[in-house]
C-alpha cells in the first residue's frame, strides 16, 4: 500500500490540488454528486480518489475492511477521467466514482484472495465482467474488500485475514460474507461497492451496516470472473448509500455476457427511470412464516413500523403463506455445500495458489488443501462431499433439490397474488464479534430469511429500516418476481424517500 499510495498523494498535493479540499474530505458523495463536481471542475477524479485513500488510511486499520488497495490502477483510471473532463468530452455514467470490489471477484493484476490462505498470492490474469463494466462506465476501483473465506459465512469472522468491524458499532460484526463491501460504504470509504450473495451475503451485511444492498435475479449479472462457491446460487450485486445509486450500479453491471452461459438474454430496463414511478396501489405480500418465533423483539418492532410506512404510501398489504420457508436452511446447506465441494476441488496446488510440497501428488493435494483452507471451508467441503457421496446422494442431495422446487413454487404462487414480498432481512441485529463462532448450526440458522430467495432465484434488496435504540441497524427485505428488479428498486426508493431509514 505505502509506496504507491504516497505517490498518489503526491499527485494530489501538486499544483492542481483543489483549494477547497477540506470540504470534500467530509462530504457524503453520491454518484450524481461526483459527476456534477467533476463536470463543474470543483474537484478532479484524482483528487477525489486521493481523498478516499486518505480516509481509508485513517479508518482501515481499525475496520479491516480493505484487504488490498489498487492505487496504481485507480490512478490510471482517474487520469483517463480527468482527461475527458479536460477535453470537455461526455462523461460516462459512473465517471470518477470511487468503488470497492469484494475479494472473491477477480481483478486483473490485483491480488484476489477470496479471504483465504490458499489464494494468498493469487493475481488473476483477467477481470470479472462486472469489474470490466464498472470500469468501462468510468468507476475508479479503489481496492478489494475483506470477506468470509470463499464467501462462506454470515459474520465476516471466517476471513483468513481477520474479521471486519461494523463501522456503526465496532464491537459488532458487519455481517457476511460481503462484510467488507458493506462496511466501506457505511464508513464513507467508497461511494459504492460490489458484493456477492449466495444465501444472503449481500443483503444481510447491508442490513447490519445500515446501507441498501441488492441481489438481482439469478442470471441478471454475469458471474464471469466471480470465483465460484455455489454456482446455481452465486450472484454479484451492489451496495451504495442510496437506492438510486444501487440502481445506477446495477444498471451498469446487468445484462447478457457471452462468457457466462447462465447470464440471461432478458432485456435490462432503465432502472433509474423506473425508480420514480408511484407505488400506490401495489400489493405487498406479508408471509406469516417470516414473522414467527426466533425474531428479535427490536427487529420485529422496526419491521412492523416499516411495513406500516408502505401502507401510508398507499400500498395494499396482503397476508400470504409460504409453507416451505421452514425447510429452506436445511435445503440451502445441502445444495450450497454440495456445489462448494465440487467447485473447491480446483484448489490442488498445481495451477495457482498455495502448494505444500510432498513427494507424492496425492499427498501434495491433501496437505495443500488441509493447510490452505480454513475451518468453515473444510467443514463445508466435508459436508458437501458427504451429501453427494454414494449411498447418501438420494437421501440428501436429491431430496434437497426436490425441496428447492417446493420453495421456488412458494414464490411463484405468491407472485400470482402480490407484486412484491416484504420480510425482515435478518432475525437479529448485528451481533457481537465472537458471540456465535462456536456453533456453526446457530450461525446457519440466522440466514433463514435470505436463503429462500437465493434458492428461488428471485431478486431481493435490503433497505435500512431504522436502528434499535438508535444504534443497531435493521434491514427490511423486499423480494420481487424473477427479473422484477425495477419493481423492487421502485419500492425501496419510495420507502427510503418516505423516511424508512429513520422509522
Amino acid at each position, binding site marked *: 500500500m505505502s509506496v504507491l499510495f504516497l505517490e498518489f498523494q503526491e499527485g494530489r498535493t501538486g499544483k492542481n490540488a483543489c483549494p477547497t479540499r477540506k470540504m470534500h474530505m467530509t462530504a457524503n458523495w453520491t454518484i450524481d454528486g461526483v459527476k456534477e463536481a467533476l463536470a463543474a471542475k470543483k474537484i478532479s477524479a484524482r483528487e477525489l480518489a486521493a481523498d478516499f485513500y486518505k480516509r481509508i488510511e485513517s479508518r482501515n486499520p481499525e475496520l479491516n475492511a480493505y484487504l488490498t488497495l489498487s492505487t496504481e490502477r485507480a490512478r490510471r483510471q482517474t487520469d483517463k477521467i480527468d482527461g475527458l473532463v479536460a477535453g470537455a468530452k461526455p462523461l460516462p455514467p459512473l465517471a470518477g466514482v470511487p468503488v470497492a470490489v469484494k475479494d472473491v471477484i477477480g481483478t486483473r493484476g490485483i491480488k484476489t484472495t477470496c479471504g483465504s490462505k490458499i489464494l494468498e498470492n493469487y493475481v488473476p490474469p483477467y477481470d470479472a465482467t462486472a469489474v470490466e463494466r464498472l470500469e468501462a462506465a468510468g468507476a475508479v476501483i479503489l481496492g478489494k474488500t475483506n470477506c468470509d473465506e470463499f464467501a462462506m459465512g454470515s459474520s465476516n469472522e471466517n476471513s483468513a485475514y481477520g474479521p471486519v468491524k461494523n463501522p456503526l458499532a465496532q464491537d459488532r460484526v458487519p455481517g457476511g460474507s460481503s462484510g467488507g463491501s458493506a462496511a466501506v460504504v457505511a464508513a464513507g470509504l467508497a461511494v459504492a461497492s460490489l458484493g456477492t450473495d449466495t444465501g444472503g451475503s449481500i443483503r444481510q451485511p447491508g442490513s447490519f451496516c445500515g446501507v441498501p444492498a441488492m441481489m438481482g435475479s439469478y442470471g441478471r449479472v454475469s458471474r464471469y470472473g466471480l470465483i465460484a462457491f455455489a454456482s*446455481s446460487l452465486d450472484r454479484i450485486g451492489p451496495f451504495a448509500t442510496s437506492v438510486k445509486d444501487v440502481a445506477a450500479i446495477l444498471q451498469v453491471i446487468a445484462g*447478457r455476457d457471452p462468457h457466462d452461459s447462465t447470464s440471461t438474454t432478458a432485456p435490462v430496463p432503465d432502472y433509474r427511470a423506473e425508480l420514480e414511478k408511484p407505488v400506490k396501489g401495489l400489493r405487498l405480500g406479508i408471509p406469516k412464516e417470516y414473522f414467527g418465533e426466533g425474531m428479535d423483539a427490536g427487529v420485529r418492532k422496526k419491521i412492523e413500523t416499516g411495513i406500516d410506512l408502505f401502507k401510508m404510501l398507499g400500498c395494499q398489504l396482503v397476508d400470504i403463506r409460504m409453507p416451505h420457508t421452514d425447510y429452506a436452511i*436445511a435445503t440451502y446447506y445441502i445444495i450450497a455445500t454440495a456445489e462448494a465441494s465440487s467447485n473447491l*476441488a480446483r484448489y490442488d496446488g498445481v495451477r495457482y495458489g498455495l*502448494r505444500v510440497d510432498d513427494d507424492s501428488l496425492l499427498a501434495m493435494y491433501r496437505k495443500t*488443501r488441509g493447510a490452505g483452507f480454513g475451518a468453515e471451508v473444510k467443514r463445508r*467441503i466435508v*459436508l458437501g462431499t458427504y451429501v453427494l457421496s454414494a449411498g447418501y446422494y438420494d437421501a440428501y442431495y436429491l431430496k434437497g433439490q426436490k425441496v428447492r422446487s417446493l420453495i421456488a413454487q412458494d414464490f411463484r404462487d405468491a407472485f400470482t397474488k402480490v407484486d412484491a414480498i416484504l420480510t425482515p432481512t435478518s432475525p437479529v441485529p448485528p451481533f457481537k464479534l465472537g458471540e456465535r463462532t462456536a456453533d456453526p*448450526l446457530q450461525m446457519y440458522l440466522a440466514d433463514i430469511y435470505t436463503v429462500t430467495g437465493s434458492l428461488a432465484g428471485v431478486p431481493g434488496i435490503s433497505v435500512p429500516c431504522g436502528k434499535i435504540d438508535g444504534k443497531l441497524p435493521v434491514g427490511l427485505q423486499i423480494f420481487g418476481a424473477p427479473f422484477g428488479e425495477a419493481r423492487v428498486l421502485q419500492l425501496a426508493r419510495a420507502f427510503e424517500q418516505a423516511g424508512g431509514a429513520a422509522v
Partner: protein
Amino acid sequence: MKISREDVLRVAELAYLELSEGELEMYRAQIDEILEYIGKLNELDTAKVEPMAQVLSDDQTADATLREDLIVPCAVAEDVLKHAPDAEPPYFRVPKVIER
C-alpha cells in the same frame, strides 16, 4: 448418530483433505448436528416433485446454447504460469505421478 468417524475419514479421503485428529472429531460432531437438523426434510413427501438443479429455463439463455462454435484467442498462458506454484513453461510441474 448420523455420521461416524469412519464416514468423515472416507469423505476427507474423497475430497483430498488432510484433517488433524482434533478436526476429525470436531467436524464429526458438528456435521452430525447439522445432518440431524437436515433430517427435517423427511417431513415432506417429495415422491412426485421434480428436482431443481438451477432456476433458469433454456429460453432465458437461448443464445448461449445456439452460439457459433468459434475460436477466440485467450492468450493468458504466460500470466497464468507466472503465478503457478511450480511452472516450467509451457507446463505446470507436479510431483511424480507414475511409479516405475
